[in-house]
């Protein structure tokens, strides 16, 4: 009896299913290449995907209210390039100041996006498509038409990405802190619950006294904040700022969220889901060269695997829904 309920709990919860898929992936990859499941390899996995993982949290909020944001990587490039150029020409130094500036730029960018979407009722995909062009162009313009800020120009800024704190890389700590904070924020704060409310039923939320427009403004500002953070992380981790960095990366973030069970029509999705989704995507990308798939075929496999994970998730969901219905009939 107890066993059955445990099984039911696993098949009933999306997150548990995802965790199962992730563990399965880990086992398969380790079977091919034992060096995958080592602490340093796993740390590298998170470090190299820190940007996507952190930004998946923002995308979770945006998608919860039924929106989408494809301008995020342009915001990342703008904020990252801005601190890169400031560091290169010695206007600022250190680690904290660039982070604050990048995040501030991100907040401003996100706030503008949020204003256009919430106040002018522009559909999110259109508004963010426009801002994708605008912010990316601004990134190019502030780079003086194509300068790069290299490792030596960044000075001590990128050191944080190589230092360890309590045995873990600082980048990983940043990711952990973000996830813990958002877990608390989405689950236990009034604002977090309001985001869910707006996503599940905007009219009902409006009637029950939630300012839907402000919530929308808030989620896009949060997204901007995390994009700014992502910009600083990107520049720090790779010790290089280029105006075209992460071009097209927004799709990875969206894919991570959808794999993690976040609904694109809003209202459904969790922080754990976003975490598992981005980990699954990261594992797929990292595993492809490890299991001996030729470099030319890697993209195809990546696409097929994303599709398979999403479809399998849907099929399992259907089965569990059917089981739930059966239970009710009896």
């Amino acid at each position, binding site marked *: 009896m107890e066993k059955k309920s445990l099984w039911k709990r696993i098949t009933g919860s999306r997150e548990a299913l995802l965790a199962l898929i992730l563990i399965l992936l880990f086992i398969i990859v380790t079977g091919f*290449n034992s*060096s*995958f499941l080592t602490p*340093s*390899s796993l740390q*590298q996995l998170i470090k*190299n*995907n820190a*940007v996507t993982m952190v930004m998946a949290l923002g995308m979770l909020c945006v998608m919860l209210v039924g929106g989408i944001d494809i301008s995020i990587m342009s915001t990342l490039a703008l904020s990252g390039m801005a601190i890169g150029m400031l560091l290169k020409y010695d206007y600022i130094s250190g680690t904290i100041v660039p982070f604050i500036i990048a995040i501030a730029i991100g907040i401003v960018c996100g706030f503008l996006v949020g204003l256009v979407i919430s106040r002018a009722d522009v559909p999110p995909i259109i508004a963010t498509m426009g801002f994708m062009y605008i912010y990316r162009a601004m*990134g*190019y313009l502030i*780079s003086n*038409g*194509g*300068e*790069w800020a*290299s*490792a*030596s*120009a960044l000075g001590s800024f990128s050191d944080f*990405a*190589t230092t360890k704190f309590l045995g873990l890389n600082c980048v990983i700590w940043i990711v952990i802190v973000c996830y813990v904070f958002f877990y608390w924020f989405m689950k236990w704060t009034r604002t977090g619950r309001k985001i869910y409310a707006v996503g599940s039923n905007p009219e009902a939320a409006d009637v029950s006294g939630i300012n839907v427009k402000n919530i929308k403004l808030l989620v896009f500002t949060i997204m901007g904040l995390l994009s700014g953070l992502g910009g600083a992380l*990107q520049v720090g*981790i*790779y*010790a*290089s700022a*280029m*105006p*075209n*960095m*992460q071009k097209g*990366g927004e799709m990875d973030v969206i894919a991570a969220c959808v794999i993690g069970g976040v609904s694109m029509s809003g209202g459904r999705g969790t922080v754990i889901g976003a975490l598992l989704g981005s980990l699954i995507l990261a594992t797929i*990308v*990292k595993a492809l*060269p*490890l299991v*001996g798939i030729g*470099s*030319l075929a890697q993209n195809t496999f990546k696409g097929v695997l994303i599709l398979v994970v999403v479809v399998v998730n849907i099929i399992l969901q259907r089965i569990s829904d059917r089981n739930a219905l059966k239970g009710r009939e009896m």
Partner: protein
Amino acid sequence: MKRKVISALLCVAMATTLLAGCGSSSSTSTSTEAEETEETEEAEEAEETEEAEETEATGSYAGQKIALVGKSAGNAFFEIAAATFVSTVEAEGGTVDLAYPEEATADAQIKVIDNLISQDYDAICLSANDTNALQAKLEEAMDAGIAVSSFDSAPNAESRQVFVNQAGTTAVAQALVDAVYDITDGAGQWAILSATSQASNQNAWIEAMEEIIANDDTYADLELVEIAYGDDEAQKSTDQTEALLQNYPDLEVICAPTTVGIAAAAKYLQDNGSSCKLTGLGLPSEMEAYTGDGDDYSCPYFYLWDMEGLGSLSAYATMALVNGEITGALGETFTAGDLGEFTITEADDGGTEIVLGLPLEFTPENVSEYAELY
């Protein structure tokens, strides 16, 4: 309902007639050119170039209007050569306009070239995003009397008059193979981390490297284990570097003939204190932090070429093409300002090229000096 559709159709009709209207009004406001058909335009341009050729006897490059087309905006590597290209042409009394495609694709470059053909340029000098895809447009440009030269990355032989090669393909490949040979002490596993699978420069170098190794017994003990593609993205390059190390624990050298790839790989190897070393082609300013002797640094030495010389030589070659001093035929010679005299030689793809010189080696001793420049 019906009215809606009709009005919609009307709008389309209006739009097309409007276009015609605007076209003719602008032509009256500017010059007489527009009313003439394209063929006469071409003829006119041909006449113009003939006239130019006549004036060239004086040996002056003054008054030339040249367009320089990059691979994409925001490429530090290209900007350095472009800056000297512009200053060289301007010093000779010509003008240069820089034009970038929206993206690093051939499709976007086609639109740029189309734009340039409309603007009566004397010459187009470009760095091609794809070997084949620009042929149609560049032939059209040459038919319109525009001189077409290229540098850094060449379009195919039919679509250019001359290509300025930064360093002979074989010379670059030889230098890289020798570096690998030197760092591995003559035997061991090594891998290549390239840009994208269709990057024509990288493919030419890799091919030449494979050929050198296959034909020379000296390199018999070098084992090329894999060619990985990092797509010139930091994240993917890092992933690929890590995968190479995990798949081949005995890997001794990674050779990355691409600026973004080498920097990302250098960062990864250095941060992890890997025993695997790195060489390849990179920008000194990007690589300064990773170049050094001993275990603290991931890259003992690497190569590039004289970027400023490349810009300058391309400028002189393009101006000489416009002037008719050279036509791009094999064996012609011309003087490129302070750089001296150059001869047009045969390129690997069957076209012609001008080779700037040998690749430059950047060692821990000279890297910071060059990092100031590029």
